[in-house]
């Protein structure tokens, strides 16, 4: 089932980000993100899933311009992001593509009231507003995220984790964004609180037309809110496509492994892939070849010599796997 094609909002092309590690004299590089290309459309929630070290958080930070890409380009609303130089343009971009952070306890300055971040965002990004208008706008975004306008005067320590994360979204909303980069926004919250925030993200998409890049390691929550899923492994995209398609018939062995490991109280524990210890590699000065090959039960000779690239295996459903691309209709590595 394909949805009508959405207008493209952001396009990443061959995005790469490396970090030099070791001392000043070392030549080793950590390949945090390697040759990643994807698009995010308007009014859609794209889930970027993967384990620690998969590169998902690095991608968010590259998109937020906290890091510059080592190579590759990002196009936002059709225009290359690397051309953004003036302070005005930079401010404009950061208002259209804000970030929501993972840690509800660290994402707000404990010294100020919770509206501080919202008011500063408004002051910087919508300078045409008067102080009174700013205050009214702050009230509006607080209501929009489900917090009463009277919560604005509270201090962070008076709020629960879930409420603080909502303030994080309010800060993003104040800037009238097109795309919110949400870096594991619910991972540190209690389970019963998570749903409220996931519902909020869906509501932002539906009523305000805001897109969200939802970074997570919890695929079940991704399924709940996202339209599309991108699965990352060791800095590269393993598989991507409409979320129901990917979950119903995962083509990449890593995706299958991930899905088999998700505990579901309604079903007995899957025996597939139980031998796998869940230790993704740290990609330092890698050789060519598939980075999953050491854990993959289906690895063939090509997997050790040629790095697989993303190819479409079903409508809009891509996977980077030699075996899957060789035409096996249903690759079953961990099923």
């Amino acid at each position, binding site marked *: 089932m394909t949805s009508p094609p959405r207008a493209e909002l952001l396009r990443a092309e061959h995005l790469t980000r490396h970090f030099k590690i070791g001392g000043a004299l070392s030549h080793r590089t950590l390949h945090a993100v390697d040759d990643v290309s994807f698009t995010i459309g308007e009014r859609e929630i794209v889930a970027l899933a993967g384990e620690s070290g998969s590169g998902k958080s690095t991608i968010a930070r590259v998109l937020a311009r*906290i890091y510059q890409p080592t190579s590759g380009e990002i196009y936002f609303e059709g225009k290359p992001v690397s051309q953004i130089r003036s302070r005005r343009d930079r401010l404009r971009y950061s208002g259209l593509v804000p970030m929501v*952070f993972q*840690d509800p*306890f660290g*994402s707000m300055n404990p010294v100020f009231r919770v509206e501080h*971040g919202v008011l500063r965002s408004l002051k910087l990004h919508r300078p045409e507003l008067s102080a009174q208008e700013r205050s009214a706008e702050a009230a509006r975004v607080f209501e929009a995220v489900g917090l009463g306008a009277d919560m604005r005067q509270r201090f962070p320590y*008076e709020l*629960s984790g879930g409420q603080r994360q909502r303030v994080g979204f309010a800060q993003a909303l104040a800037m009238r964004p097109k795309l919110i980069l949400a870096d594991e926004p619910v991972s540190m919250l209690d389970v019963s609180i998570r749903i409220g925030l996931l519902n909020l993200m869906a509501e932002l998409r539906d009523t305000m037309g805001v897109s969200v890049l939802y970074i997570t390691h919890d695929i079940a929550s991704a399924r709940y809110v996202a339209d599309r899923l991108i699965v990352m492994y060791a800095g590269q995209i393993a598989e991507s496509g409409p979320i129901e398609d990917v979950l119903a018939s995962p083509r990449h062995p890593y995706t299958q492994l991930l899905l088999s490991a998700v505990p579901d109280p309604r079903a007995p524990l899957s025996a597939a892939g139980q031998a796998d210890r869940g230790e993704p590699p740290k990609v330092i000065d890698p050789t060519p070849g598939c980075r999953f090959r050491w854990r993959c039960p289906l690895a063939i000779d090509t997997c050790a010599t040629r790095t697989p690239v993303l190819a479409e295996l079903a409508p809009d459903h891509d996977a980077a796997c030699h075996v899957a691309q060789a035409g096996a209709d249903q690759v079953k590595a961990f099923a």
Partner: protein
Amino acid sequence: MAMPVSGVPTETAGGPRQWGGVAQLPSGSALGRVGRAIRSNRKATVGTVLLVIFILIALFPWVIARDSPTQDAYTPQLGISTAHLLGTNHYGQDLFSQLVWGTRNVLIIAFAVGVATTGIAVLIGIAAAYLGGLWDGSLSVLTDVLLVIPLFPLLIIIAAYAHGGTTLVLIIAITLTSWSYTARQLRSQALTLRNRDFLEAARVRGERRLYIIVVEVIPTMTSLIVASFLTNALYAVLFASSLQFIGLGDPNTVSWGTTLYWAENNAALQTGEPLWAIAPGACIAVLGAAFALLNYAFDEVGNPALRPVRKIRQRKGAQMEGAQ
């Protein structure tokens, strides 16, 4: 709206263990919060009361000491009496007046050095931490060089070079030699804050660097900054008095250290005028204690884990109440 209880650890799913939030004080005006904090903590109360007494004495010395401190009109070497609360010294000066009037000089030095030292340290230490790179490198080298030089000998050299220190010289000398330690401390703490999410959030929303340093970083370090101020004020009192004692201050200034200097010059302890030496020493000690108590109290207010715990009586081997 329910809030987590302060003092009881609350866990977040997979996250760090928190003590019910970062700050422990109820909201309200800053002054109200400080007032409540002082009243609730015994060390703070004692320290504040002492400090306030000293400040009042410094501001209005004529209220309690009628006599002029320098006039040597009295009979020398009198003992304690109602007319002369601490007796008179070798020159016939009233000792009590000397101490009372001397408070002003001591407190001026303490506060001036405290403010100047902390101000310089904040600028250099926090800027180094936040700006990083070459800035951090050069500022740190400057800090470290001064840190390594032994403090007191340097003070002596500076004071001697200035041909005996007026109060201003003492303030400058002590400030120059003390700021580096605090700068190092502040830099370390600022470094730990550097990657906190709220700072990254400020960067991402487009704040300028100076704004982040002044508005976002420094206010979260107030407790360390206040503690530094108190520590530096305390050490200023000790160093200034020491310099005056060994004769590097201006012997004609009325101050506790100079009183000690004259007492030493006249061998007060040996010639049966012990109060002359002991009293100023006691004043220095009490003022120092006031600063130190406030410092402890500030630590405790800022970090609840340091507060004294009510001793929980547990008789060894016995059953707990209601147990079975």
